[in-house]
């Protein structure tokens, strides 16, 4: 969004979602296989961040860095291995059935693949009113058909689309239906798990505009997951950069994009394709050595040290911690040798 607006944290709001030390290891509990016991995939390893009401927190990183696992764990589609996620002060991971049902109304999700996220055998009307079947007190039965059609209009579809089946729509339209379904319970937090990655470029823009419009109207906080740097930059108030299951850097969009402190962020941003392609830009491109290490066997100490040009002995031993600052405006990096904080405006 507009970078000149002060971040919601600055206005002295309390975070609606506080994630602390979120950890998800796969294959930890063994199984019937002979090999499964020894291999633990550390998909997410101690992720912390705050989310403030009405803001957009971008979660960016390469594929396999654990972005989607963070989303799935927060939704309790996967059970976390460790960590806390306080939603309005209550830990999501220790909630009982009734509390969980209540949370579902307040936190919703948009998935990456619009084709797969809608049941092909259900009409749009049934898809959108499914949340009200699960939470029957939200909208009385006789008002549901009307509300479905109102919602369709509010996401830019037509009222008569309610009669159709998912296969009769294009990808962009299906994503709009997915958004309408997520809106039915009037959530306060929306987790957007790569909502535009599966769409054409021209349609990406429309869906992003729709998401922004909805945020303006309903003051929903977004966790916006993507691997597209420019999309995250456009959408986000604050950005968390993830590398190999950990948050490398956290700050406002201006801070992270303008003066990155973590070496990984610098390298990532320098790889972003740009239209203003000059020789100077090319010379500044940082080429990282090697591959992303396997999350089954991550490096000791700093996760990024194997590819970092600043790495020293200390990076092998000490894990650099990311300390989330309570004012939410802090620009922090999980690095022993971060770039200095910039004081002036970026660029």
């Amino acid at each position, binding site marked *: 969004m507009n970078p000149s607006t002060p971040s919601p944290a600055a206005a002295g709001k309390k975070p609606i979602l506080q994630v602390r030390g979120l950890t998800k290891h796969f294959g930890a509990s063994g199984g019937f296989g002979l090999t499964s016991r020894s291999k633990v995939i550390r998909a997410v390893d101690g992720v912390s961040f705050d989310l403030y009401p009405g803001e957009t927190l971008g979660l960016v990183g390469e594929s396999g860095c654990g972005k989607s696992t963070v989303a799935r764990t927060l939704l309790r589609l996967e059970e976390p291995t460790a960590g806390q996620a306080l939603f309005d002060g209550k830990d999501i991971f220790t909630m009982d059935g009734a509390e969980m049902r209540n949370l579902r109304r307040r936190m919703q999700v948009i998935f990456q693949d619009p084709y797969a996220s809608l049941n092909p055998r259900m*009409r749009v009307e049934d898809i959108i009113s*499914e949340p009200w079947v*699960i939470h029957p007190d939200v909208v009385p039965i006789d008002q549901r058909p009307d509300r479905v059609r109102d919602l369709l209009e509010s996401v*830019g579809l037509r009222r008569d689309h309610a009669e159709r089946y998912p296969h009769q729509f294009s990808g962009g339209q299906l994503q709009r239906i997915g958004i309408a379904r997520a809106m039915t319970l009037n959530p306060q937090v929306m987790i957007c798990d790569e909502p535009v990655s599966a769409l054409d470029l021209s349609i990406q823009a429309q869906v992003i505009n729709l998401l922004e419009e909805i945020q303006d109207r309903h003051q929903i906080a977004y966790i916006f997951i993507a691997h597209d740097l420019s999309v995250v930059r456009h959408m986000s108030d604050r950005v968390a950069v993830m590398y190999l299951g950990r948050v490398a850097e956290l700050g406002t969009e201006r801070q992270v994009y303008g003066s990155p402190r973590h070496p990984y962020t610098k390298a990532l941003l320098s790889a972003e394709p740009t239209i203003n392609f000059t020789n100077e830009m090319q010379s500044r491109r940082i080429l990282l050595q090697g591959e992303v290490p396997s999350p089954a066997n991550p490096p000791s100490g700093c996760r990024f040290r194997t590819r970092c040009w600043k790495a020293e002995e200390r990076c092998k031993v000490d894990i650099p911690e990311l300390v989330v600052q309570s004012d939410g405006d802090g620009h922090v990096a999980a690095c022993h040798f971060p770039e200095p904080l910039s004081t002036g405006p970026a660029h």
Partner: protein
Amino acid sequence: MTTVTTTPTSGEAEAVIIRRAQPWWQLLWRDKFACVAAVWLTVLAFCLIIGPELLGDTATQLNLRARNAVPGLENGPMWILGGDPLGRSLLARLIVGARNTISVALTAVFIAMTVGGTLGMVAGYVGKWVSHVIMRLADVVQSFPSLLLAVIVLYMLEPRVGNLIIVLATTRTPIYLRVTRAEVLEIRERVFVDASRALGSGRFHILRNHIAPIVAPTLLTIMTVDFASVMLSESGLSFLGIGIQPPAITWGLMVAQGRNYLAQAWWLAFFPGLMIMFATLSANILSSWLRLATDPVQRWRLETHKKEEDDK
């Protein structure tokens, strides 16, 4: 017939073709094979309901002049398909036999599908532990040859129709169970199930609204194929004397009895066999039509059929 509209969509320059939903009888009429199958099954249902009341006496009436009679009209219209070794009308016996045959097979298959489907959904969705218990039980049933199991059980219990149905259903259940579980394991990982979970739905809601509608057509298809093998199993058991007992009539029993006369009077086994085949075939064709008609993604195949004919 079909309304094809090109809709200007919301800012997205993509044309979507929409066809008005058609009532099921129109879809059935479009598919001529399915139509014939439906008619044949209706005739069988008619035989099943009033056959024994209508022709019960004719089916047991002896006519010694028509012993092993050749199909034809020499002995009167009821002997058009020939006569059995006691001179009874084969046609009447086929019609009267429909009730026992179809009700036994249908009930057995239906019970197997219901029990197998339910257990399969539980095994696929609930928990690892429950799943293991259910699957090992299925293994136990499957590890016995089904005929042997039936012989033992029916020998120990009374060879009554009720017991026969239970035995046949038990031996068929593991097939439905395994297929259902396999499908559930696949469907439960789909994103729309995750979406439903994120909305707060419970297991029962997901099984009923998202998983069962997708598994059902598969089970229906297996059911129609199974229908024939259950009819044959029943005839096998009847042949061994522990199924349906001889004064009663079933098609399988007629095939079994006709086997002795295969060299002299082939029609004794041929016509009951034909009945079994047609019944199964019809059920199969109709079920594949039903599978298409209930699938919103596939339904257009039935709807465009007529349009192509119009174009010619």
